């Protein structure tokens, strides 16, 4: 099969998946190889966008919306703010690799293998043949079903309450880190 016939044989879903995957992996490669931390953070946003596209091809529309709102809208902003409040981070251009890069590569590959093995054990060869089927009831009103299971004691009511405790802990921790310990003269920051 030539490359052209391969291209024309693709369904629109496969085209979307391939484009989203290229965006995700390409932007992720920029994140880990870019010498400028700020540019890496911007590339991370593009990578998150690709993941949102993959969620859409998996019929997980709510997850895609959450990805857009939380990851691209909030977490990326937080990362960028963290870079901007850190002294000299904006201009510094240094190699993104340090002495632990071999270990990091090993952990990344091992993590991928574990996930791949679990998916293969769970779905068998079907994982490659087609995407797992989604129940029509879930497709038609997934968000409402999610809301019902949030407050159902037999479903996710307890984890849901635990989430609020997690958010509380995150708030206290983050505020404590950024506690105003002393008044910093703005002119001193220039130094």
């Amino acid at each position, binding site marked *: 099969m030539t490359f052209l016939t391969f291209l024309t044989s693709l369904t629109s879903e496969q085209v979307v998946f391939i484009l989203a995957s290229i965006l995700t992996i390409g932007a992720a490669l920029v994140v880990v190889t870019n010498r400028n931390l700020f540019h890496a953070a911007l590339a991370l946003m593009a990578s998150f966008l690709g993941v949102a596209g993959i969620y859409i091809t998996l019929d997980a529309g709510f997850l895609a919306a959450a990805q857009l709102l939380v990851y691209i809208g909030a977490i990326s902003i937080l990362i960028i703010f963290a870079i*901007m409040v850190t002294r000299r981070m904006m201009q510094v251009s240094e190699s993104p690799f340090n002495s632990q890069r071999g270990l990091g590569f090993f952990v990344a590959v091992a993590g991928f293998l574990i996930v791949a093995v679990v998916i293969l054990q769970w779905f068998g060869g079907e994982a490659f043949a087609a995407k797992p089927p989604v129940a029509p009831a879930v497709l038609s009103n997934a968000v409402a079903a999610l809301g019902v299971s949030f*407050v159902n004691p037999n479903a996710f009511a307890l984890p849901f309450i635990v989430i609020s405790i997690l958010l509380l802990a995150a708030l206290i921790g983050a505020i404590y880190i950024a506690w105003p310990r002393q008044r910093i003269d703005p002119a001193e920051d220039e130094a």
Partner: protein
Amino acid sequence: MENQILIDYLPIAVLFGIALFFALLIPALSLSLGPKPKPIDEAPIHKYMPYESGIVAIGEAQRRLPVKFYRIAVLFILFDVDIILLVPWAISFRQLGMFGLAVMGLFMFLFLLGDLWVWKKGLLEWE
């Protein structure tokens, strides 16, 4: 059937395409049609200065931000997650009844406890 889902998202793809097109078109037009400026070290010194009533810049543009911006960003991220969790609950609000309200009430109580603490400590004040 599977293409139906993608058709639902077609407007978003079109919007994405238009945004990408203009994001590339405008800088390309500006680069190709505009006059070519000299590099900053060859140009006359006033070329890169602010216009007549502009204020001459002091210091670097990329200086460290005060940490209070980070605090606001953290609060924003928490409210963002809270909104995402509220939406499914609000959609099925009527069928959940009083028990649903109670669970969400407990959730919001724990969540707002932290915000009340931050408020009381005066960390929301913007000097």
